[in-house]
């Protein structure tokens, strides 16, 4: 069985969880086995995971699971995987997923691969799977040589697909250890799609000259329904909040569309964004290194180009 750990936030499943179930379903099909989902804690939507391919959803309910402690979660997931006889365990490569993967590898005596972006394949009996390495500058193909395999799926790598119907939800009895990490507060910025999950991102850099000029960036983002981001110098100068900083030391993202405005494209910035599917660069310097990795480029003054682009997007949205 392929067992997908489907993460939820206060009971609601995010796109990354649906992607993981879709990935689990397709992997199970390839292996000729069943896909099931595992849900920890309270949620009313567990049955919906069936639509993405889970034949069954197992739910472990316990008050200790309301907060995240990687030690507790790993113990429960590993126990469930053993009870259910899972041969592949799939996680999302989220903040929580990343702190679970290594633990599960140790607990299940399993080979693990972090942040895969494509389905596995079986080649002459060998289980092979690819993941980007060197900040997306190369792809490594791994062979997993163990009975049980643990895989985390990077966000936005495959789209959630509806493959089935609602699935029966069954309780699973698993011992839940006492948490040693005490969660005091969870602070989330409400109302925006967090950058690691955003499909469309509008990002700007020093070329904007000052924080007072961000209005046109925000308008473009709003017209597109995109999340805003920025380069490191902009965050360091406190023109924009640190949580918007994408790049090697900030957040690594892989949206479908990344629009970079007034960002030269230093290698440290590219390391965080070059997994984006499509990159648009707007820069008045035709020699800006960012153009070398861009799909589309506009050589021009951001203060002129961005409002024109916003208007074009609005016209497009109005007619579609």
């Amino acid at each position, binding site marked *: 069985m392929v067992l997908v750990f489907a993460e939820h936030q206060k009971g609601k499943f995010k796109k990354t969880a649906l992607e993981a179930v879709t990935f689990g379903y397709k992997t199970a099909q390839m292996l000729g086995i069943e896909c099931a989902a595992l849900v920890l804690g309270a949620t009313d939507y567990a049955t919906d995971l069936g639509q993405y391919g889970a034949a069954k959803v197992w739910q472990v309910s316990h008050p200790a699971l309301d907060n995240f402690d990687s*030690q507790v979660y790993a113990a429960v997931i590993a126990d469930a995987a053993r009870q259910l006889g899972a041969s592949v365990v799939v996680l999302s490569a989220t903040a929580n997923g990343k702190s679970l993967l*290594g633990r599960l590898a*140790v607990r299940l005596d399993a080979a693990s691969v972090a942040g895969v972006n494509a389905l596995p394949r079986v080649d002459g009996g060998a289980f092979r799977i690819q993941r980007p390495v*060197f900040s997306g500058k190369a792809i*490594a*193909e791994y062979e997993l040589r163990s009975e049980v395999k643990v895989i985390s799926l990077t966000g936005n790598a495959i789209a959630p697909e509806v493959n089935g119907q609602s699935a029966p939800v069954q309780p699973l009895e698993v011992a839940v250890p006492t948490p040693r990490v005490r969660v005091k507060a*969870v602070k989330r910025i409400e109302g925006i799609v967090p950058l690691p999950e955003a499909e469309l991102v509008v990002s700007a850099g020093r070329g904007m000259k000052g924080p007072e000029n961000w209005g046109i960036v925000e308008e473009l983002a709003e017209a597109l329904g995109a999340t805003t981001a920025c380069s490191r110098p902009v965050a360091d100068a406190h023109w924009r909040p640190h949580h918007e900083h994408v790049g090697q030391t900030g957040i690594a993202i892989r949206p479908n569309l990344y629009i970079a405005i007034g960002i030269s494209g230093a290698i440290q910035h590219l390391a965080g964004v070059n997994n984006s599917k499509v990159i648009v660069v707007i820069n008045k310097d035709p020699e800006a290194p960012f153009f070398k990795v861009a799909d589309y480029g506009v050589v021009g003054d951001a203060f002129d180009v961005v409002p024109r682009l916003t208007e074009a997007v609005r016209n497009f949205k109005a007619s579609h």
Partner: protein
Amino acid sequence: MKLLVCISKVPDTNAKIAFTNNQTEYDTAGVQYIMNPYDEWYALVRALELKEALGGSVTLVHVGTADSETIIRKGLAIGADDAVRIDADPKSALFVAQQIAELARNEHYDIIFLGKETIDYNGAEIGAMVAEYLDLPYISYANHLEVNGTVASVTREIEGGAEEVEVNLPFVVSAAKGMAEQRIPNMRGIMMAKTKPLKVLPPVPIEDKAVVVMYQTPPAKSSVKLVAPENMDELVRLLHEEAKVI
């Protein structure tokens, strides 16, 4: 406070990424190596700050061959007290984690630090593995860490926000930007580092379970398609019809 900082060696950010031996090995020819920035700038410096405030010692551990000595000495020059090198090629996350756990099992460190990920393989797996081997709590992607007696308050990055947690010592933590500020070693530190203890230990043998069998470099991007600034309707059309992203 007895603190352990795990440091790894990575190709410089500007290093060329190429593969050799029929695309099965990273081509190290001409590659400059550095200490992984997350280990150096955040994990190590925060450990040193805690030692300065609360007393104790900071030990470095590195899994690598003899040519790693330069980066270990740099860590000592920045201020660590001593270092241990496990003499082996760090061939997988599980291998490295097991070596670190083996050392830490007998030494009883209060906090084990590492960077949030290495900038080459970006796996972010080792901290969780070390914590699991040692049956310790693990806080990943921490950007703030305070210690008060035997309790630590830690802030960790989560999607679109932050989580504030408390945990009793001992535990394992991975450091992200914000936890500390980079320190440049001074001349005195560099001189002192030359005589600080650096112990070399043999590795514990383990069998690898996840093995890289081939590397590929992504196909070169076709050159950028330029659109005139006056023609933003055309850019929107391309994004919709050609790229299919809006």
